[in-house]
């Protein structure tokens, strides 16, 4: 099912070339005038004389083998260009996921297990931060933590080969900006899941048999709540993939997302298609992992069932 999604998505990405007004060549060149030699190269590369579906097939086949075309502006392989930047984006998304895991799930678990003041204040804080879009969070974080407090650099100071600590410092503000709006939903679902599991009858059974409280929480409440929590966490991480472009732009990070935006602005369609394909694939892969985790955690579910 998700593979089907991927195929359709790739088709849409490819087909966008044809939806554009004007000829395919005009779109490929981004409206620039091209010398005849370049036109010939493009014709050959994209098999522009072949029927539509054949072209799609060539494109997809190339993509699967790592050839995503050539950037019209930089005259380099798109794959190489992506490869240089992919770790920045991956690092950013991973860092943000870590923050969501620790803060979002952590707060949710605490709020779920100990109803009280912490519970309501956590909910309120996260509800407010949830409404703050990543780019607004970015400028506020920059203002407070970079300009006023000077704890973190505004622009990435490390170059490749910089120490791990420098990299972490560089990426902290962006990661927080990326994670902020997702914290609320993860915390809220976690809390609700824990509350619901804690009230279940099988927990009563365990208590009635004298199982120590701590163990009841671990082996029954948390273990069962892990199912919906993992699902929402995975879906959240998947959503980070697209928003990373916004954060990278705001913090001038040299990631795949920022590059996507630049390519879109300069109408470099090959690059946009290539990066879109990569991002959508990542999105689908994360969702697939979510479904897998769900099947692993819940023995009642057969592999292939939808987690959401």
């Amino acid at each position: 099912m998700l593979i089907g999604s991927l195929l359709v998505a790739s088709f849409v990405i490819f087909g966008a070339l044809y939806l554009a007004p004007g000829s395919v060549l005009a779109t490929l060149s981004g409206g620039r005038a091209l010398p005849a030699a370049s036109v010939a190269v493009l014709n050959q590369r994209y098999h522009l004389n072949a029927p539509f579906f054949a072209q799609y097939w060539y494109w997809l086949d190339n993509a699967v083998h790592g050839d995503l075309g050539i950037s019209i502006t930089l005259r380099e392989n798109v794959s190489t260009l992506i490869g240089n930047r992919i770790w920045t984006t991956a690092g950013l998304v991973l860092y943000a996921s870590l923050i969501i895991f620790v803060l979002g799930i952590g707060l949710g678990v605490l709020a779920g297990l100990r109803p009280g003041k912490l519970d309501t204040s956590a909910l309120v804080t996260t509800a407010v931060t949830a409404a703050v879009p990543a780019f607004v969070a970015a400028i506020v974080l920059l203002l407070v933590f970079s300009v006023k407090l000077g704890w973190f650099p505004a622009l990435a100071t490390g170059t490749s080969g910089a120490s791990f600590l420098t990299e972490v410092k560089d990426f902290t503000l962006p990661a927080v900006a990326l994670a902020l709006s997702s914290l609320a939903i993860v915390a809220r679902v976690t809390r609700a899941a824990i509350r619901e599991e804690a009230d279940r009858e099988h927990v009563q059974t365990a208590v009635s048999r004298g199982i120590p409280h701590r163990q009841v929480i671990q082996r029954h409440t948390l273990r069962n709540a892990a199912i919906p929590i993992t699902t929402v966490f995975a879906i959240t991480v998947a959503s980070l993939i697209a928003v990373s472009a916004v954060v990278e732009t705001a913090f001038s990070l040299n990631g795949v997302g920022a590059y996507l935006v630049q390519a879109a602005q300069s109408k470099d369609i090959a690059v946009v298609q290539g990066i879109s394909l990569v991002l959508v694939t990542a999105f689908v892969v994360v969702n697939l992992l979510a479904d897998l985790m769900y099947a692993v955690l819940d023995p009642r579910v057969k592999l292939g069932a939808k987690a959401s």
Partner: protein
Amino acid sequence: MSRLVFANRKTRGDLSVARGGLGVASGKRRFAGGKLGVAGTICAVVVGLAVLAAVAGPFIAPYSPTLPNLQLAWVGPVSGHLLGFDFEGRDVLSRLLAGAQTAMLGPLVVVVLAMAGGALFAVVAAWRRGATDAVISSGMDVLFAFPGILLAVLATTVFGAGLTAAAVALAIAYLPYVARVLRSGALKERNQTYVQALEVQGVSVPRICFGHILPNMSGIIVAQATVLFGYAMVDLAAISFLGLGVQPPAANWGVMISENEPGILQGYPLPALAAGLCVVAVVIAVNVLGERLLEREGQR
């Protein structure tokens, strides 16, 4: 008009036939008068102000929102200029007021398109059930793979930067989500006895779907639309922030954040912050309203 809505609701489980009537407009009116509570009223006020700014902004702005005056760049608040000047010397308040238009209009277009498309698919799937439902549902599931922002970037590259391409792309990206939500509501309605009664009386299928089923879902439709508005607003502002939506020198809150970002680093945070605050305020207000409405729907 509201009496017709009540007549619609009575037909559930009742063999008497309702006299048509489109419920959505009156549905909105019913909720506006409902018990929203203190928080809800504040949010409604904020949204109201934003709508006002969107409609009247360009006219009531005291100064030109687009004419640059570089000598006044980054000057702070002075009398007559509550929020100071932006990076090109324009009055921030005026630009905010003017920017409200695109900031509110874009999401509205997205919501209308997504809800219309989603409702259509949902009703068709719920009505025909069986194979048609399976095909539509699978189709919707497949579309889920496209994050809204990504589709919007793709669309603006191909069709040119601007609100139209971005809004349509977002609407398409939201469609599966809307269709899924509305489908379950539509299925519930379709199984009610009043639908069978209408069928027996020979009322045409489109009339049943759009004249009765959809109006009876007006609650969930309005609630969902409100929540969707919040998402669309954030996504569209992000697109404009990325430079792919509204193009400068046109006024737009997302654009303002982007173009005034350097000010944050140089010690002039106000213009960017003010624009950010506008976005956040309206999004919070819309979200809270939407959640209230959803809660009330859940209690039915």
